[in-house]
């Protein structure tokens, strides 16, 4: 069967010409379109589906989906459903900026949200600022609180590296030893740890025995270990990337049973099963955790609720696949940020993109966030001037193949003087 159509080349050309003329007569016609109030609130989710951040991205995605579903079940935001529009940024800053522009200008999103890796945040923030798109990052970088970004960029759902690192020092110096040697990757992330932690150690009466930077391309670490001074009482490590398993294995072979106390950041082992071969040496060592991966004996009802809704078992792995270990120490940030966005939109009476500025101002006005189903990681204190949230941190010790919390910091331990006041900047 054939379909007869009236389309001719001349007709098509006429239509094209008419369309072109119409477009030319209406310049900028689609640049300022925005959602109508009856439509869903569109949240652009900048997710690392590919690239180095993919393991984090997968779990950020699951957490965000779970929180959005819960918000919608409870009636949405200001009576409107929430729609999560995910775009992969490839964990690349250039693509990240393009994705932010896509949210604002193509998808008509009300805001952008969810970025983890610092270079993607820093690369994307200028675009968010130029497009006047509220940009809620879940990155733990110090970039927001340092004043490097802009008034449209906020981090209300996860603490930053400076407060995390600083708050570890009192416990490390008081309980593990006073002479600390740091092994860190020789780039910005490692330098933040070096600078913030060494200052905090000295402020707490400890001393830095040695600072050992490791080039980012290194795949074997044996040659660095002899540089560790013999009188080192605590070894602080913050290696990330695929070489971390080699690092731990070689460290174990180097020290044998006579190792100093070892303290590390779980960032290196997020999404990695502690039972992986080569990690036996970690038994008895300590880790910072943003949120305890293993359900603790004194687990709060809020953590239980959150864990269940996201689909994570008591060991921090997916309920459907015990080998699929979550990025539990970080991903709560997506959950909590979505609830901050909800609170901000409700306070601002948010009805559409014209209220974006009011949304930022409303979030800036938030201070206390009690521990709850909305904030399962712990109570938070938001600083509207620095756009940064502060909250408790956890120190866990590896034992029996699990991480057991031995210390929880107070929020006060994590505070430091403001480095910026975004509220004095224009929009």
């Amino acid at each position, binding site marked *: 069967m054939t379909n007869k159509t009236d389309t001719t080349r001349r007709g098509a050309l006429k239509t094209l010409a008419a369309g072109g003329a119409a477009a030319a007569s209406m310049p900028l016609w689609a640049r300022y379109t925005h959602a109508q109030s009856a439509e869903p609130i569109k949240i652009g989710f900048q997710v690392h589906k590919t690239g180095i951040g993919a393991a984090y991205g997968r779990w950020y995605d699951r957490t965000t989906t779970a929180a959005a579903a819960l918000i919608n079940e409870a009636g949405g935001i200001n009576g409107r459903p929430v729609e999560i529009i995910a775009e992969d940024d490839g964990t690349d800053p250039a693509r990240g900026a393009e994705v932010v522009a896509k949210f604002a200008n193509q998808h008509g999103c009300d805001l952008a949200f969810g970025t983890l890796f610092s270079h993607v945040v820093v*690369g994307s923030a200028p675009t968010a600022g130029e497009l006047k798109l509220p940009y809620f990052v879940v990155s733990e970088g110090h*970039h927001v609180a340092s004043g490097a970004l802009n008034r449209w960029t906020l981090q209300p759902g996860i603490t930053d590296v400076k407060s995390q690192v600083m708050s570890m020092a009192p416990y490390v110096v008081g309980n593990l030893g006073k002479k600390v040697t740091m092994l860190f990757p020789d780039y910005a992330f490692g330098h933040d740890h070096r600078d913030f932690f060494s200052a905090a150690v000295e402020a707490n009466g400890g001393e830095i025995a040695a600072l050992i930077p490791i080039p980012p391309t290194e795949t074997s670490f044996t040659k660095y270990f002899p540089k560790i001074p013999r009188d080192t009482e605590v070894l602080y490590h913050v290696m990330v990337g695929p070489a971390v398993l080699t690092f731990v294995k070689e460290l174990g072979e180097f020290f044998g049973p006579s190792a100093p106390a070892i303290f590390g950041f779980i960032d290196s082992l997020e999404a990695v099963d502690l039972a992986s071969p080569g990690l036996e040496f970690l038994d008895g060592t300590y880790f910072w955790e943003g949120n305890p991966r293993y359900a603790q004996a004194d687990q709060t009802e809020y953590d239980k609720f959150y864990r269940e809704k996201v689909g994570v078992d008591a060991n921090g792995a997916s309920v459907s696949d015990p080998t699929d270990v979550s990025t539990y120490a970080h991903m709560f940030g997506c959950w909590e940020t979505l609830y901050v966005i909800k609170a901000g939109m409700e306070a601002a009476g948010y009805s559409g993109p014209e209220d974006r500025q009011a949304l930022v101002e409303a979030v800036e006005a938030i201070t206390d966030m009690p521990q709850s189903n909305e904030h399962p990681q712990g109570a938070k204190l938001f600083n509207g001037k620095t756009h940064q949230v502060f909250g408790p941190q956890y120190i866990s010790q590896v034992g029996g193949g699990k991480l057991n919390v031995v210390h929880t910091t107070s929020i006060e331990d994590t505070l430091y003087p403001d480095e910026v006041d975004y509220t004095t900047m224009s929009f």
Partner: protein
Amino acid sequence: MTETAKAVILHLGLIAVLFALQFVLPAYHHGNMARVMVLATYAMGYNLLFGYTGLLSLGHAMFFAAGMYGMALTVRHLGWTPPPALLAGLLSGAVLSALVGALALRTVGVAFMIVTLMFSQAAYLTILYFTTWTRGEEGFVLQQVQRVFWGIDPSDPTTRYFLALLVFATCLMLSLWLVRSGFGKVLIAIRENEDRAQMLGYDIFAHKLGAVVISGTMSATAGAVYALLFGYAGASFAGVQYSILPLLWVLLGGAGTLIGPFIGALFTFYLIDITSGYTSAYMAVVGAVLIALTLFARQGIGGEIRARVWRGLP
């Protein structure tokens, strides 16, 4: 109509179309086009070396990054305004390409590829090594106020589009003039048959070095302008990925054609933009398209136009 007139009309026509698109493109595509024009400028620089001189570099990201950091670091640490900072970016690219060219051109073929790749990796690690000033892989923002010059604000979408067009158009017409000049013809002769060009008495090394410097400086221009227009400088732009991308764009668009880099950059941008909405394996799609083009249109899109439509396409 002479071949020269046809060539000038074609390339001025492309510039005119891009000028007109500013008034009709929806916001998202308007912003994308500004990016594509800057990236196409980078690819044009690459194409002068690869497409016209026959030298395959795997390290052009170092030139792009030299321009980007030459511009951004002088703004950040020395408080320079954009015009001298842009010049610093260009100069960084010119000096680096002269140095790298002088050393790398002692090798040929695969060795040249490897040497340029190694130099580029060294440049990348240098940026990380000086994290105190560069902020390493995290990079840093150039704030809007730091980017304003002569009352021009590059963060304004319309201004940004026209600045990108200005740079793209300048480099396009400069390239057109270059490849039709005596110097450019010698480069093509070297690509076609180096021994014969040498036998005819041309100084091969000097011409190749000239090509590396012009190519590197044009790539650095794109890097400096990228930092100015989009307000960010980071080490990822010096990574191996950004050395492979211009090769990809030029191969897709047509090596040795002036419009090829633009076509390739535009095509790849939207290929990624659209396919990433459907699958996270979008780079596999890009790979498949590249394989298909290699099999069925070995000359790239521009090369096919030259083979089938207009043999005189510059």
